[in-house]
Every structure is written in C-alpha cells, then in structure tokens.
C-alpha cells in the first residue's frame, strides 16, 4: 500500500507542479495580453457652411468614401438621400479632437457649386456649421501587420454568437474548457475520415492562437487542454468569448492581417459588426476554418456551401427556425468589393504623417496604443492629383514615343493660409507603397531657383525694381579652380537689355546668372534659406541656375513662403492626436514667421504672374482663366532630365515634378511636362485668385510698352507695374499710373512670345 501511494505521489507531485506552472503562464499571458491596437489615421473632415464653394459631386464622393447608404427615407446614422443638388444626411456620431459630436440630421442645399442653405432636417432650424466624420485613410500597424477593430461583447449580434457556438463549440457555455463529448466525436471522425468539427472548444482555440505554435502533436494538444481548463477557472465565459471574437484570423489583405470579427465585417461587408445580417454572420463564422480556402471573393461557391453549413448547424441547434434557414440560405453572399487598401489608401501621404509623428511619439506607441490621428489630407484633391499625374504620364509617353513607364513623377499640394498639406502623390502608381518621390526624390531644380535671385534684387529697392534693365548679353563667369562658366539661354539667343520682370517671366539664364553674381551667390542662397529650404546649398555660380538638388516638398515649402506674402509657415500634415477613447493628447499649432520683406515679395509675385500670362508658363491659359492671376515658375534641367512646375493661386500652392528614376532624359520641359499635370488637377479645384494685400510703400507707375522700362518722358503707350516708392525717381519725374488696360496687349505683340 505504501509503495503504491509513494508511486502515486511521485507521479502527482511533478504533475501538480507542472500544472501550477501552466496556470501561471495562462494567467500572466491572458491578463498581460493587451491587443496591440493600431493607430487610426483620418483625413480632414468635410465641413459645411453657407457660402462654401463645393460641388454636389464632391459631397456625393465624400459620402461614398464614408460608406453612407442611400435610402428613400433617411432615419439612421450613415444614411443619406440626394434630390437634385440637395442632400439629406444623418451624420454618424464621432469623437473629434474638440469633443463628441452626436449624430445630426441635416439638409444641405447646393446651388451652382455653393452651399446656399444649411439646416436641421427635422426642426428646420438654420445651421451655421455642420461637419461629417472624417474618412479613415489608414492605420499604423504593429510590426506583424495585424489589424483589428476591437469590439465589446455587447456590440456583437446574438446570432453571430449563436453561429459560432453552433459551428465551433456547441457546449461552450456548459463545459469547463474542454468538451469530452466533442473530443470523442472528433476522435471517431479521425477514423471515419470525415472532416466535421474539430474537438477543440473555443477556449482551446484561443489558447492555441495565443500561446502555442501550429504543430499537431498529441503532447501539445494535452497542454492545450490543461491550459484551457485553467483559463476557464480564472476567467469568465464572456471574457473568453470576447477575446476570441477579437483575436481570430480572417485572412490577409496585402500587407495587413485581418484579425477579429470587428474588422472582418468591415473588410468583407463594409459594415459595422452591429449591423451584420444572419447570412453575413454565418459566412464569417464559416471562414474561420480556412480563410484562404473559403475566401468568398476567390472561391464563392465554396464559401456559400460553407456558409449554409453554418446556417444548418444553427438550425439544428434551434437558433433559427427551419423557415428562416430556408429563406436565409438562399441569399447571395453579399460581399462588398475588395477595398483597395492594404494598410493605407494613401501610402505617400501616410509616409509624411508617420515621419512627422515619429518626432513626437515612440514608434511602439504609434503601433499599439490605438491613437487617433487627425490629418490634413483632402481626399478629393488627392484623387484629382493622382489621376492627373498617372493619365498625363501615359499621354506624354505616347506623344513623345517614350517606352512605357519611362516617366515617373510626384505632386504636392498645400493650403496657402496655414501650410496644411492637402495631397501627396509619390509616384504614378499612387496606391502602392514604393519610393516616395514627393518626399525623397532629390533632383536638380533648374530655373525654379531663379525667383530667389530676383527676390534678393527686389529687396534692394534703391538699386532694383521690376523694370530695371538687365543685360542678357553673353556672360562669362571666372572663378579660380573651375572652368569658365558661360551660361546659355534655352533658345540659344541673347536678348540684349530686358526689364527684370521679363527676364524672370521668360526664364532667361544669362540675365539670371549675371544678376545673381552681381548680387553675390551667398546672398542669393541666403534668400533661398529664408524661403524655408533647410538643405545644404551650393556656393558656386552654377548653383544660381539650379544645380542644387531639392525634393518636391522642399520646393513646395519654398514657393509657399512666396504665396503667403513672405511668411514662412512650416508644413503640417497632422492637426491633432487623441487617445483611443477620444481624449485630446496634443495638437500641432499653426505657426508662421515673417521671412521676406513684404514689398519685395509682392513685386516678385507680379513677375511670377507674368510667367503664366506671356512667360514660359503661358500654356496655363488652356487650363485656368486669367482672372485667377496664377503665379508660377517652370523648371527644366540639363538634357531635359527634370520637368518641374511650381505655382499657386490665392489659396493653393502645388508643385509637380516629372522625371526618370534613373535620370535619363525625358524630352520634356517644365512647360511641356509638369505644367500640363499641374493645370490638369488645378482646373478641377475651386480656387481663389491671387489677391495679396498691397504693402503701404508700393506705388504704381507706367512702363513703356516698347522696352518694358520705366516711362519718364513719353507717357503714351504704357502699362502699369507696381514699384517700391524708393525705386521711383525721388523728383517725381516719371509717368504716373493712369493707363487703360488695353495697352497691355500691344506690349505683348511688340515683344513677341
């Protein structure tokens, strides 16, 4: 007897210790296991106010991206109805940075591209302001690329739980972690060869997902059983079920792994889990056995069969009636099209967001704390820019007989007033995360640097003004240690004496080089730096013609300062960040700094406007009306390797770059290439004209139409230009500005194109 009890003890004690060890593991891991919740990234929310410029099409587009459903009678959040150009919408409740916004039932009237009326639909009270929730543009994922939408058990439809129980674990609520009946059943099917239910309970499956590898060993199975039992000792059925629902794997979407029913219902049905119908819930449960094998988009017949098996199990467990089963099993799959997303809809913009965030947040927090990030992206503008780039590149390759995919490009758009980045296009295939040319393609900027030369000059009003005669005759620059530098104009001609504004508008290299060296290369580069360029800059003469390498976003920042009247405003891609629950964490403030004397900037803008009228950018007239007063600059480099256009309206600044990734020639100038993309998307945007406040020390004066120089004696045949008062003859001996605008066209004819 004693020997027997000793043997028993000898066997039980180690077993006991082992089980106690497993117990600790289970508890520690389950409690400590916090799901890594990816950060959620939002575009700017679409806001409405009376008088706003927006088209009905744009509203429709936004509602579509938000997955709003069109209904005859609009009653619940997420529904809308469009009648002509009137929209009745019930917005979804949403927690913004500035607090929770409840669902609103509103009516928006649009007339000729303007919001004419805004009111609540029920009480018909006029509203001053309304706001839709923002589109989710992506997330910042844990390194395994797991993505999930956490749900609470209360949010899960009961029929989904029933489907799960009926299919995976009939006695979930009765057993204590392991179901002996199920084990026996599974054991028997091992011999019969039918693959029916596995013998694992939901608890066991959870343990397997969390802790154990995918080996199929008996020993591992036993361990799994013990741990399942232990789990059930420590944690309640609800907790286990909730965790299971958030954990299970539903397949791969490009570079993210779909986990949990919450995300699965959005991924397969574009629906919130709370709104799943029975047949949809049944499909999801059916997927668990093999998300790839039963993929409803790839293998719809298999998926349908599997779904109906689940429905049959539900009927047999009497969760649904035979009638319901008959009806529901005849429904189609109802899968929505594959969202073209992977981890993000807009990878190039997300790239910018993440770079800005990394300055303030630990990467691990970004990937796991469920932060909510409110960005400045305008999805409408982004789409226009993406399409313009990809379609124009196709056209250009055809017309220039270039090989397919020879050209690539980048686009960046920002708002003038506040420096918010509204769109980033990193390449012609915008939806793929590849090399982000907008942020990282550092290329020679060519003539884009010239405004800095002229700005440096105009900042010395006693010496230079818009009509100062600049010599465009042969110019040689000699420096010890380098070869003589003899810049050439694009048309290989020399143009004699030209007024400063025209030298810029026509982008003459020779006059720019002469002027730049006169002013001092360092002074010009100092201006470039003041405009917001932080890159290292050359101190040799050819730098004046743009051998400096900049990325499109750096160029955009530079032109943004000019567009802002000389105020340097650092670009922002993020407005605010909140916690997962909506508590404000921090915001990115609007800051600005005066960088360029306002008058010099004002005069420069006038010259840049001439670029679009009769300078190198004149082709813009095919895209945009002259009344907008667009200002801009073309840029072309040696051997036509880079084609640039940088320009702005009153409210938008945009830069386009086109080139070949291996720096092969493109056969495109700034005007024949980048400008056409620029015009293409700008023409579809609601734009304000360039309208800079005139500084107090600016006076208008007349300029000869013949030579573009200040008119002193003959005051006929003139047109007007602005001048700093210090630039004008102090004795008042010049023609004032009382000039009819008709004369401008004379000048255009006389000086040719």
């Amino acid at each position: 007897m004693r020997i027997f009890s000793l043997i028993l003890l000898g066997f039980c004690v180690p077993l006991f210790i082992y089980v106690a060890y497993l117990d600790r593991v289970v508890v520690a891991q389950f409690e400590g296991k916090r799901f890594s919740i990816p950060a959620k990234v939002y575009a700017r929310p679409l806001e409405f106010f009376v008088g706003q410029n927006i088209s009905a099409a744009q509203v429709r587009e936004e509602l579509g991206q938000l997955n709003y459903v069109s209904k005859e009678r609009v009653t619940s959040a997420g529904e809308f109805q469009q009648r002509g150009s009137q929209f009745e919408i019930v917005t979804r409740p949403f927690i913004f940075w500035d607090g929770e916004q409840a669902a609103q039932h509103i009516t928006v009237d649009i007339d000729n591209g303007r919001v004419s009326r805004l009111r609540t639909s029920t009480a018909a009270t006029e509203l001053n302001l309304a706001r839709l929730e923002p589109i989710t543009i992506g997330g910042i994922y844990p390194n395994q690329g797991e993505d999930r939408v956490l749900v609470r058990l209360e949010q899960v439809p009961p029929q989904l739980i029933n489907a799960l129980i009926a299919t995976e674990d009939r006695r979930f609520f009765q057993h204590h972690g392991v179901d002996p009946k199920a084990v026996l059943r599974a054991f028997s099917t091992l011999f019969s060869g039918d693959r029916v239910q596995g013998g694992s309970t939901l608890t066991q499956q959870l343990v397997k997902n969390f802790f154990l590898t995918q080996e199929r060993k008996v020993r591992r199975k036993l361990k799994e059983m013990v741990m399942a039992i232990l789990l059930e000792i420590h944690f309640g059925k609800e907790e286990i079920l909730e965790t299971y629902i958030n954990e299970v794997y539903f397949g791969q979407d490009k570079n993210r792994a779909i986990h949990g029913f919450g995300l699965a219902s959005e991924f397969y049905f574009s629906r919130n889990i709370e709104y799943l119908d029975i047949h949809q819930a049944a499909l999801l449960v059916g997927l668990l056995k093999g998300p790839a094998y039963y993929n409803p988009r790839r293998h719809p017949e298999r998926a349908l069969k599997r779904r109906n098996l689940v429905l049959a199990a539900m009927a047999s467990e009497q969760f649904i009636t035979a009638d319901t089963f008959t009806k529901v099993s005849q429904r189609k799959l109802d899968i929505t099209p594959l969202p073209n997303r992977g981890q993000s809809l807009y990878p190039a913009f997300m790239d910018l967001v993440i770079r800005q965030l990394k300055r303030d947040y630990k990467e691990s927090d970004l990937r796991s704390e469920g932060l909510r990030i409110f960005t400045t992206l305008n999805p409408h503008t982004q789409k226009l820019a993406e399409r313009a780039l990809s379609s124009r590149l196709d056209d250009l390759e055809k017309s220039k007989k270039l090989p397919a995919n020879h050209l690539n490009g980048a686009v960046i758009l920002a708002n003038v007033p506040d420096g918010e980045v509204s769109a980033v296009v990193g390449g012609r295939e915008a939806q793929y995360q590849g090399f982000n040319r907008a942020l990282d393609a550092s290329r020679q900027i060519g003539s884009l640097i010239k405004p800095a030369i002229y700005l440096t000059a105009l900042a010395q009003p006693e010496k230079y003004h818009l009509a100062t005669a600049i010599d465009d005759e042969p110019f040689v620059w000699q420096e010890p240690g380098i070869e003589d530098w003899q810049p050439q104009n694009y048309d290989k001609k020399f143009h004699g004496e030209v007024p400063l504004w025209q030298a810029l508008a026509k982008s003459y290299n020779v006059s720019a080089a002469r002027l730049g060296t006169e002013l001092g290369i360092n002074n010009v580069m100092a201006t470039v730096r003041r405009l917001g360029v932080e890159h290292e800059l050359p101190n040799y003469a050819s730098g004046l013609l743009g051998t400096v390498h900049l990325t499109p976003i750096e160029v955009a920042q530079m032109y943004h300062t000019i567009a802002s009247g000389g105020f340097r405003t650092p670009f922002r891609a993020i407005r605010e960040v909140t916690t997962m629950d909506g508590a404000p964490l921090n915001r990115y403030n609007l800051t600005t700094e005066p960088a360029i004397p306002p008058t010099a900037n004002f005069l420069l803008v006038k010259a840049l406007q001439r670029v679009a009228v009769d300078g190198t950018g004149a082709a813009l007239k095919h895209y945009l009306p002259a009344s907008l007063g667009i200002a801009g600059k073309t840029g072309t480099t040696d051997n036509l390797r880079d084609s640039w256009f940088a320009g702005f309206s009153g409210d938008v600044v945009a830069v386009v770059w086109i080139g070949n990734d291996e720096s092969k020639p493109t056969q495109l100038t700034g005007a024949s290439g980048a400008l056409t993309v620029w015009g293409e998307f700008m023409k579809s945007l609601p734009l304000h004209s360039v309208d800079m406040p005139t500084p107090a020390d600016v006076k208008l004066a007349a300029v000869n139409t013949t030579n573009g120089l200040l008119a002193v004696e003959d005051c006929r045949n003139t047109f007007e230009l602005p001048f700093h008062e210090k630039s004008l003859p102090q004795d008042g001996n010049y023609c004032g500005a009382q000039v009819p605008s008709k004369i401008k066209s004379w000048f255009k004819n006389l000086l040719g194109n």
Partner: protein
Amino acid sequence: MILSRVVYFSLVLFISACSNVPMVKQEPASHNPAVMDLYTAAAEFTGQGRYDQAKSSLERALRFEPKNAWLWYELAIINQLQGNYRDAQNLALRARSFTSSPKLITNIDMFLKELEARSYY
C-alpha cells in the same frame, strides 16, 4: 449675436486690463456666422483657460476666412497668454498684413510693443 458681442467685448476688456491695450471700437470679427460661432467659442475657451481648444476653434475659422485679420490677431493674443511671445509676435504681424483698418493696426502695433517689452525679460 448679442451674446457674442458681449463675450468678445469682455475678452477685449480682460486683455486690455492685462496689457494696457486701448479698447477697440466694436466691429464684428466677421460677417460669416460660422466664423462668428467659432470665434465666440474661442473667446469662451480662452476665458476658461482652455487655450488649445481656443486655438483649434480659431484655426478652424481661419480655414473658412484665411484673410481675416481678427482671427489671426486672436491667435496671437492666445499665444501671448500662453507665454509664446515669439509666436504671438509673428501671428500679430501676419494679422497686420491682412488689415487696412487703422484702428486694428493701432491695436496690433501696441500689442507688438507690449510683447517687445515683455520678451525683454
């Protein structure tokens, strides 16, 4: 409308008291009711010391009326209250570039003088 004027007026009084700025004659900050709503909200937040929320409202209003000198000036004031003197100065200069109202210009100029004096310490 009256409430917003009262709030704005009180705000101006408060700031005048703190910084010896002469009171500006009442002009509405905007004719856009959406902008006025946000402007008023900003004034309320400022009164409660909730500066980040105030700035959020103003920046939102600026998206509707980017050239509204009052909004820029208000942003400058809030930055000053937060002790961000450099930003306050820059924003005030930006505000100044958007207005030709002699009264507002005088006000901003005095604000800038005050800032210079303060940032000396």
